[in-house]
């Protein structure tokens, strides 16, 4: 891509979206959840992976949305889709059968073997914070050939041990995932955080740092992980977004609903105040 110029002006979430997008290969079937990955997949489809097919647990497969869906239940994912079915069609007939290549998931906590928590902080029965729960995340993480974990990077989120394992990663590392009965040839492939991109070692299945985002140091990443993080011997900077990628991302999110939530929130709040809501 010699004529592709790298963008100079971009935000960290925009960089994460391009990193998500680059994980998707052309022709793959991708299961999408809520948030940044949805933009990542739409970006992939408009750039290097026009033939990737997106599946949504609502039951839609290979949709042709005319707007950026605000989520997987957006009504616009139905008209002109290849299949409008139901959750069990996607989960049982596609995912459980092994026909989904990539699934994106997130959570409040991740540990070094890629286990994820999106259920509660603290004890399950007396939680300090109750989070939404699994949704489809557990199922994506169990069955997708490659699950991709998208995380806000804070020290309290990269933990030695999750308070609750909503979505199993490599469990205790090594072969333990497959010994527990999870399907061979599945598991977390990468963690894309606000600071860097991480992968899992082939034998121990332990998370290591592969690339750090521009402006971030390896040391600052190590400081924000609650275990002794291994670093790739060829650790390097994350490839920045191209100008084309940034242009498309901004087209996909014209009002800042996904990526400039502070600004969006301020605008809507002002409207709400004018109309006597608050």
């Amino acid at each position, binding site marked *: 891509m010699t004529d592709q110029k790298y963008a100079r002006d971009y935000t960290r979430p925009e960089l994460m979206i391009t990193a998500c997008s680059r994980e998707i290969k052309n022709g793959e079937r991708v299961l999408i959840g809520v948030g940044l990955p949805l933009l990542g997949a739409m970006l992939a489809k408009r750039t290097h992976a026009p033939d990737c097919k997106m599946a949504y647990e609502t039951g839609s497969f290979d949709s042709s949305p005319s707007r950026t869906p605000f989520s997987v239940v957006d009504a616009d994912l*139905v008209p002109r889709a290849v299949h409008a079915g139901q959750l069990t069609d996607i989960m049982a007939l596609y995912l459980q059968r092994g026909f989904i290549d990539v699934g994106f998931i997130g959570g409040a906590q991740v540990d070094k073997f890629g286990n994820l928590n999106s259920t509660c902080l603290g004890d399950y029965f007396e939680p*300090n914070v*109750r989070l939404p*729960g699994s*949704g489809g995340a557990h199922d994506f993480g*169990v069955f997708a050939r490659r699950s991709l974990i998208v995380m806000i990077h804070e020290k309290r989120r990269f933990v030695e041990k999750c308070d*609750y394992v909503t979505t199993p990663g490599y469990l205790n590392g090594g072969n333990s995932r497959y010994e527990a009965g999870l399907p061979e040839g599945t598991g977390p492939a990468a963690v894309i955080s606000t600071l860097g991109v991480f992968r899992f070692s082939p034998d121990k299945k332990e998370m290591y740092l592969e690339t750090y985002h521009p402006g971030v140091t390896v040391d600052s990443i190590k400081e924000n992980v609650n275990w002794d993080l291994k670093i790739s011997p060829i650790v390097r900077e994350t490839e920045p977004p191209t100008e084309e990628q940034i242009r498309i991302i901004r087209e996909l999110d014209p009002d800042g609903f996904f990526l400039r939530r502070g600004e969006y929130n301020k605008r809507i709040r002002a409207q709400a105040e004018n109309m006597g809501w608050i």
Partner: protein
Amino acid sequence: MAEASKIMTMKEAISQFVDDGMTVYISAVWANHAAAAAHEIIRQGKKNLTLVESSPGEIFDQMIGAGCVKRLIISWCANEAFGTSYRFRRAVEKGLIEVEDYSNFGLTAKLMAGAMGIPFMPILSQQGSSINEIKSFLGENKLKHIACPFTGQKVTLISGINPDVSIIHCQRADLEGNIQTWGSLFSAKWGTLAGKKIIASVEEVVNTDTIRRNPELTLAPGFRVAAVVHEPWGAHPGHLFGYHDDDRWFRYMYANFVADDDAKFKKFMDEWVYGVEDRAGYISNYLRKYGYKRLMRLRPKPFYSDPINYGTYPFDTMHMDIQEVMK
């Protein structure tokens, strides 16, 4: 002779079929979003309900906030891309309600088993996680792991469930209660059919002939359906394919500026739930505040599918005289 009409008001349907302490499935995943029914349950002050749904949002949040709920069997609860379900979150954190957590697939498999009248559904999901190991009020009846009796493969058995009542919002039904829906259904098919009784609110009441011209759209035949409620805009602020879009602005408001504050939540509920008689009253309030133009912006422009050919199959083709045909 035509069967007796199943049509009634939401007030009648909820008071007749929903009692305190029941287990209730309510389609609450924004598509087929049974908002009108949830609001009527709140108005009638139902208590100690066990609610079941895979990934509910605002209407579960509101029923929890209104004190209708004792237990939840869910896999997720949030106001979706718009924000946190604060009423849900606080109630769990304070120990006011109990939760049994599944994954979306596990929860839907549970409803599927119930709908099919079998005690459990085997799935390959849910191994090696806290979802399996930590059991709440269902205890050992939540799920079990076994080795497949044929192959020895590890399998998770999800216990089935038959809610006392299942409630859904659909596109249309006839007087006999044959209900039809289209679009992506999430868990709504199995959730609805798992119910011992079914209440359906619909955007339109149609002739049986209309039902018969598209038999594949039927979610449940009339004999399964206890009540049909004619409730236009019944999913608002969620959507119903072909009838109304999500009201994103309204949903964003609730999630971000209402749900996390006790006083604002009370004001919202007083206005939109307690302060109106029924869904018609709710829509009147919407029109009064925001006008007809804004409501109609939620109505999608038509995009019809092509007619498909079912064919006609006359009696004489089964008994034709070959020589007669060859003449």
